[in-house]
Protein backbone atom coordinates (compact mmCIF):
# COMPACT_ATOMS: atom_id res chain seq x y z
CA UNK A 1 0.00 0.00 0.00
CA UNK A 2 1.45 3.32 -1.04
CA UNK A 3 -0.40 5.41 1.54
CA UNK A 4 1.03 3.29 4.31
CA UNK A 5 4.71 4.01 3.96
CA UNK A 6 6.83 5.60 6.62
CA UNK A 7 7.70 9.25 6.24
CA UNK A 8 11.32 9.70 5.09
CA UNK A 9 12.63 11.39 8.26
CA UNK A 10 11.19 8.59 10.31
CA UNK A 11 12.84 6.02 8.10
CA UNK A 12 16.20 7.74 8.53
CA UNK A 13 15.77 7.99 12.27
CA UNK A 14 14.91 4.31 12.50
CA UNK A 15 17.93 3.34 10.43
CA UNK A 16 20.13 5.50 12.59
CA UNK A 17 18.75 4.03 15.82
CA UNK A 18 19.29 0.52 14.51
CA UNK A 19 22.85 1.52 13.62
CA UNK A 20 23.45 2.25 17.29
CA UNK A 21 22.31 5.83 17.85
CA UNK A 22 19.76 4.71 20.36
CA UNK A 23 19.29 8.19 21.88
CA UNK A 24 17.49 9.14 18.68
CA UNK A 25 14.61 6.96 19.75
CA UNK A 26 13.46 9.90 21.85
CA UNK A 27 13.00 12.07 18.76
CA UNK A 28 11.36 9.24 16.87
CA UNK A 29 8.57 8.81 19.37
CA UNK A 30 7.92 12.40 20.44
CA UNK A 31 5.22 12.99 17.82
CA UNK A 32 3.44 9.81 18.93
CA UNK A 33 3.30 10.22 22.68
CA UNK A 34 -0.23 11.52 22.82
CA UNK A 35 -1.58 8.96 20.38
CA UNK A 36 -0.21 6.05 22.34
CA UNK A 37 -1.37 7.39 25.70
CA UNK A 38 -4.88 8.21 24.53
CA UNK A 39 -5.18 4.81 22.96
CA UNK A 40 -4.16 3.13 26.21
CA UNK A 41 -6.38 5.39 28.29
CA UNK A 42 -9.42 4.77 26.15
CA UNK A 43 -8.98 1.02 26.39
CA UNK A 44 -8.01 0.80 30.06
CA UNK A 45 -10.08 3.69 31.44
CA UNK A 46 -7.53 4.36 34.13
CA UNK A 47 -4.79 6.99 33.96
CA UNK A 48 -2.15 5.14 35.95
CA UNK A 49 -2.57 1.94 33.92
CA UNK A 50 -2.63 3.93 30.71
CA UNK A 51 0.63 5.68 31.48
CA UNK A 52 2.26 2.42 32.42
CA UNK A 53 1.03 0.64 29.32
CA UNK A 54 2.14 3.57 27.15
CA UNK A 55 5.66 3.34 28.60
CA UNK A 56 5.72 -0.42 28.07
CA UNK A 57 4.53 0.00 24.50
CA UNK A 58 7.32 2.46 23.71
CA UNK A 59 9.90 0.17 25.28
CA UNK A 60 8.58 -2.77 23.33
CA UNK A 61 8.74 -0.69 20.17
CA UNK A 62 12.37 0.09 20.93
CA UNK A 63 13.28 -3.52 21.58
CA UNK A 64 11.50 -4.73 18.46
CA UNK A 65 12.46 -1.89 16.18
CA UNK A 66 14.47 -4.21 13.96
CA UNK A 67 11.24 -6.05 13.16
CA UNK A 68 9.51 -2.91 11.94
CA UNK A 69 8.83 -3.11 8.24
CA UNK A 70 9.02 0.22 6.50
CA UNK A 71 6.14 -0.52 4.16
CA UNK A 72 3.81 0.15 7.05
CA UNK A 73 3.46 3.40 8.96
CA UNK A 74 5.47 3.66 12.13
CA UNK A 75 2.42 5.18 13.85
CA UNK A 76 0.24 2.23 12.88
CA UNK A 77 2.87 -0.19 14.08
CA UNK A 78 3.09 1.63 17.41
CA UNK A 79 -0.67 1.59 17.74
CA UNK A 80 -0.83 -2.14 17.23
CA UNK A 81 1.87 -2.65 19.88
CA UNK A 82 -0.13 -0.44 22.24
CA UNK A 83 -3.30 -2.36 21.50
CA UNK A 84 -1.59 -5.64 22.38
CA UNK A 85 -0.10 -4.21 25.56
CA UNK A 86 -3.46 -2.81 26.62
CA UNK A 87 -5.23 -6.06 25.86
CA UNK A 88 -2.78 -8.12 27.85
CA UNK A 89 -3.08 -5.67 30.74
CA UNK A 90 -6.84 -6.06 30.60
CA UNK A 91 -6.45 -9.82 30.64
CA UNK A 92 -4.15 -9.67 33.64
CA UNK A 93 -6.70 -7.63 35.51
CA UNK A 94 -9.14 -10.35 34.70
CA UNK A 95 -9.67 -11.22 38.35
CA UNK A 96 -11.88 -8.17 38.40
CA UNK A 97 -14.85 -8.73 36.09
CA UNK A 98 -13.50 -7.85 32.70
CA UNK A 99 -15.19 -6.34 29.77
CA UNK A 100 -15.95 -8.98 27.25
CA UNK A 101 -14.47 -8.92 23.79
CA UNK A 102 -17.25 -11.21 22.69
CA UNK A 103 -19.95 -9.71 20.62
CA UNK A 104 -22.67 -8.41 22.92
CA UNK A 105 -25.83 -10.44 22.63
CA UNK A 106 -27.55 -7.67 20.74
CA UNK A 107 -24.98 -7.88 17.96
CA UNK A 108 -27.68 -8.53 15.45
CA UNK A 109 -29.78 -5.84 17.00
CA UNK A 110 -30.26 -2.31 16.05
CA UNK A 111 -28.74 0.68 17.78
CA UNK A 112 -31.10 3.60 17.51
CA UNK A 113 -29.94 7.20 17.69
CA UNK A 114 -31.38 9.88 19.94
CA UNK A 115 -34.16 11.64 18.09
CA UNK A 116 -33.87 15.39 17.86
CA UNK A 117 -35.67 17.97 15.84
CA UNK A 118 -32.78 20.26 15.40
CA UNK A 119 -29.14 20.43 16.23
CA UNK A 120 -27.15 23.50 17.02
CA UNK A 121 -23.47 22.90 16.41
CA UNK A 122 -21.34 22.60 19.55
CA UNK A 123 -18.16 24.53 18.73
CA UNK A 124 -14.79 22.81 19.25
CA UNK A 125 -13.90 25.41 21.87
CA UNK A 126 -16.47 23.77 24.10
CA UNK A 127 -13.96 21.02 24.90
CA UNK A 128 -11.97 23.59 26.84
CA UNK A 129 -14.65 23.25 29.49
CA UNK A 130 -13.98 20.46 31.92
CA UNK A 131 -17.68 19.69 32.12
CA UNK A 132 -17.82 18.98 28.39
CA UNK A 133 -14.58 17.01 28.38
CA UNK A 134 -15.88 14.80 31.14
CA UNK A 135 -19.13 14.14 29.31
CA UNK A 136 -17.20 13.12 26.20
CA UNK A 137 -14.64 11.03 28.06
CA UNK A 138 -17.28 9.16 30.01
CA UNK A 139 -19.38 8.51 26.94
CA UNK A 140 -16.40 7.03 25.09
CA UNK A 141 -15.42 4.98 28.14
CA UNK A 142 -18.90 3.50 28.35
CA UNK A 143 -18.93 2.13 24.80
CA UNK A 144 -18.52 -1.68 25.05
CA UNK A 145 -14.86 -2.59 24.52
CA UNK A 146 -15.39 -4.41 21.26
CA UNK A 147 -16.84 -1.27 19.66
CA UNK A 148 -14.55 1.08 21.54
CA UNK A 149 -11.43 -0.49 20.06
CA UNK A 150 -12.67 0.10 16.56
CA UNK A 151 -13.86 3.59 17.39
CA UNK A 152 -10.53 4.62 18.91
CA UNK A 153 -8.48 3.36 16.00
CA UNK A 154 -10.67 4.77 13.30
CA UNK A 155 -12.19 7.96 14.72
CA UNK A 156 -9.65 9.04 17.29
CA UNK A 157 -6.36 7.74 15.90
CA UNK A 158 -7.65 8.25 12.37
CA UNK A 159 -6.50 4.97 10.89
CA UNK A 160 -8.14 4.04 7.62
CA UNK A 161 -10.84 1.38 7.64
CA UNK A 162 -8.34 -1.06 6.14
CA UNK A 163 -5.63 -0.27 8.68
CA UNK A 164 -8.18 -0.61 11.48
CA UNK A 165 -9.27 -3.99 10.17
CA UNK A 166 -5.68 -5.16 9.87
CA UNK A 167 -4.68 -3.92 13.32
CA UNK A 168 -7.65 -5.57 15.00
CA UNK A 169 -7.46 -8.69 12.86
CA UNK A 170 -11.08 -8.38 11.76
CA UNK A 171 -12.76 -7.87 8.40
CA UNK A 172 -13.44 -4.49 6.84
CA UNK A 173 -17.15 -5.25 7.05
CA UNK A 174 -16.86 -5.88 10.79
CA UNK A 175 -15.01 -2.59 11.22
CA UNK A 176 -17.84 -0.77 9.49
CA UNK A 177 -20.53 -2.40 11.62
CA UNK A 178 -18.70 -1.83 14.89
CA UNK A 179 -17.85 1.73 13.97
CA UNK A 180 -21.43 2.45 13.12
CA UNK A 181 -22.65 1.07 16.42
CA UNK A 182 -20.06 3.00 18.40
CA UNK A 183 -20.93 6.24 16.67
CA UNK A 184 -24.66 5.81 17.12
CA UNK A 185 -24.15 4.89 20.79
CA UNK A 186 -22.22 8.10 21.27
CA UNK A 187 -24.86 10.12 19.50
CA UNK A 188 -27.63 8.53 21.52
CA UNK A 189 -25.91 9.29 24.77
CA UNK A 190 -24.27 12.62 24.04
CA UNK A 191 -26.69 14.48 21.82
CA UNK A 192 -29.31 14.98 24.58
CA UNK A 193 -26.61 15.79 27.14
CA UNK A 194 -24.77 18.27 24.98
CA UNK A 195 -27.99 19.92 23.93
CA UNK A 196 -28.72 20.72 27.53
CA UNK A 197 -25.37 22.28 28.17
CA UNK A 198 -25.95 25.95 27.84
CA UNK A 199 -22.90 27.45 26.17
CA UNK A 200 -23.52 30.73 27.96
CA UNK A 201 -23.25 29.15 31.38
CA UNK A 202 -19.68 30.18 31.96
CA UNK A 203 -19.68 30.32 35.75
CA UNK A 204 -18.60 27.39 37.87
CA UNK A 205 -16.10 26.24 35.23
CA UNK A 206 -14.76 23.67 37.70
CA UNK A 207 -17.98 21.67 37.67
Amino acid sequence: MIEGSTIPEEGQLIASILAGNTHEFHSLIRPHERTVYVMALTLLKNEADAEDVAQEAFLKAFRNLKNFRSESKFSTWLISITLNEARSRLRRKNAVPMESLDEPSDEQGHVSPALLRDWREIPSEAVERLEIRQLLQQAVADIPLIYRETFVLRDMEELSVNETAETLGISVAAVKVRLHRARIMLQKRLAPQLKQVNPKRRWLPWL
Partner: protein
Amino acid sequence: MVIDCKHVWDHISGYLDDTLSAEVKEQVQLHLEHCEICSAILDSTRNILILTADERTFELPLGFSERLHARLDEEIGGFEPAPLKSD
Protein backbone atom coordinates in the same frame (compact mmCIF):
# COMPACT_ATOMS: atom_id res chain seq x y z
CA MET B 1 -37.01 4.34 -4.04
CA VAL B 2 -38.10 6.11 -0.89
CA ILE B 3 -36.47 4.90 2.32
CA ASP B 4 -37.72 5.46 5.84
CA CYS B 5 -35.92 6.95 8.83
CA LYS B 6 -34.76 3.63 10.26
CA HIS B 7 -33.03 2.77 7.02
CA VAL B 8 -31.35 6.13 6.97
CA TRP B 9 -30.00 5.56 10.50
CA ASP B 10 -28.31 2.38 9.31
CA HIS B 11 -26.41 4.43 6.78
CA ILE B 12 -25.38 7.40 8.94
CA SER B 13 -21.87 6.09 9.51
CA GLY B 14 -21.37 5.16 5.87
CA TYR B 15 -22.73 8.51 4.82
CA LEU B 16 -20.25 10.35 7.06
CA ASP B 17 -17.38 8.29 5.66
CA ASP B 18 -18.73 8.59 2.15
CA THR B 19 -18.57 4.87 1.59
CA LEU B 20 -22.15 4.36 0.43
CA SER B 21 -22.94 3.26 -3.09
CA ALA B 22 -24.10 6.07 -5.35
CA GLU B 23 -27.62 4.70 -5.26
CA VAL B 24 -27.94 4.48 -1.49
CA LYS B 25 -26.21 7.80 -1.04
CA GLU B 26 -28.77 9.47 -3.24
CA GLN B 27 -31.65 7.86 -1.34
CA VAL B 28 -30.21 9.05 1.94
CA GLN B 29 -29.65 12.54 0.60
CA LEU B 30 -33.17 12.73 -0.71
CA HIS B 31 -34.52 11.67 2.65
CA LEU B 32 -32.35 14.15 4.52
CA GLU B 33 -33.69 17.02 2.46
CA HIS B 34 -37.16 16.39 3.82
CA CYS B 35 -36.55 14.95 7.26
CA GLU B 36 -35.48 17.34 9.99
CA ILE B 37 -35.06 14.54 12.51
CA CYS B 38 -32.62 12.54 10.39
CA SER B 39 -30.80 15.74 9.48
CA ALA B 40 -30.41 16.56 13.17
CA ILE B 41 -29.17 13.02 13.86
CA LEU B 42 -26.61 13.30 11.09
CA ASP B 43 -25.43 16.76 12.19
CA SER B 44 -25.20 15.79 15.84
CA THR B 45 -23.29 12.61 15.06
CA ARG B 46 -20.82 14.47 12.88
CA ASN B 47 -20.43 17.17 15.53
CA ILE B 48 -19.91 14.64 18.33
CA LEU B 49 -17.23 12.81 16.33
CA ILE B 50 -15.36 16.07 15.86
CA LEU B 51 -15.53 16.76 19.59
CA THR B 52 -14.38 13.29 20.66
CA ALA B 53 -11.47 13.43 18.20
CA ASP B 54 -10.41 16.87 19.42
CA GLU B 55 -6.91 16.70 20.90
CA ARG B 56 -8.06 18.69 23.92
CA THR B 57 -10.73 16.17 24.89
CA PHE B 58 -8.23 13.60 26.14
CA GLU B 59 -5.16 15.25 27.58
CA LEU B 60 -1.76 13.92 28.50
CA PRO B 61 -1.26 13.93 32.27
CA LEU B 62 1.14 16.52 33.63
CA GLY B 63 4.73 15.28 33.46
CA PHE B 64 3.87 12.31 31.23
CA SER B 65 6.55 13.11 28.70
CA GLU B 66 9.28 13.68 31.30
CA ARG B 67 8.51 10.40 33.04
CA LEU B 68 8.38 8.51 29.75
CA HIS B 69 11.74 9.77 28.53
CA ALA B 70 13.36 9.22 31.91
CA ARG B 71 12.15 5.61 31.85
CA LEU B 72 13.39 5.18 28.29
CA ASP B 73 16.79 6.55 29.28
CA GLU B 74 16.97 4.03 32.10
CA GLU B 75 15.99 1.05 30.02
CA ILE B 76 17.50 1.90 26.68
CA GLY B 77 20.89 2.24 28.37
CA GLY B 78 20.98 -1.49 28.88
CA PHE B 79 20.25 -2.15 25.26
CA GLU B 80 22.98 -0.07 23.72
CA PRO B 81 25.34 -2.00 21.49
CA ALA B 82 28.20 -3.35 23.55
CA PRO B 83 30.90 -0.68 23.62
CA LEU B 84 34.12 -1.50 21.84
CA LYS B 85 36.85 -2.34 24.25
CA SER B 86 39.84 -0.13 23.82
CA ASP B 87 42.31 -2.37 25.56
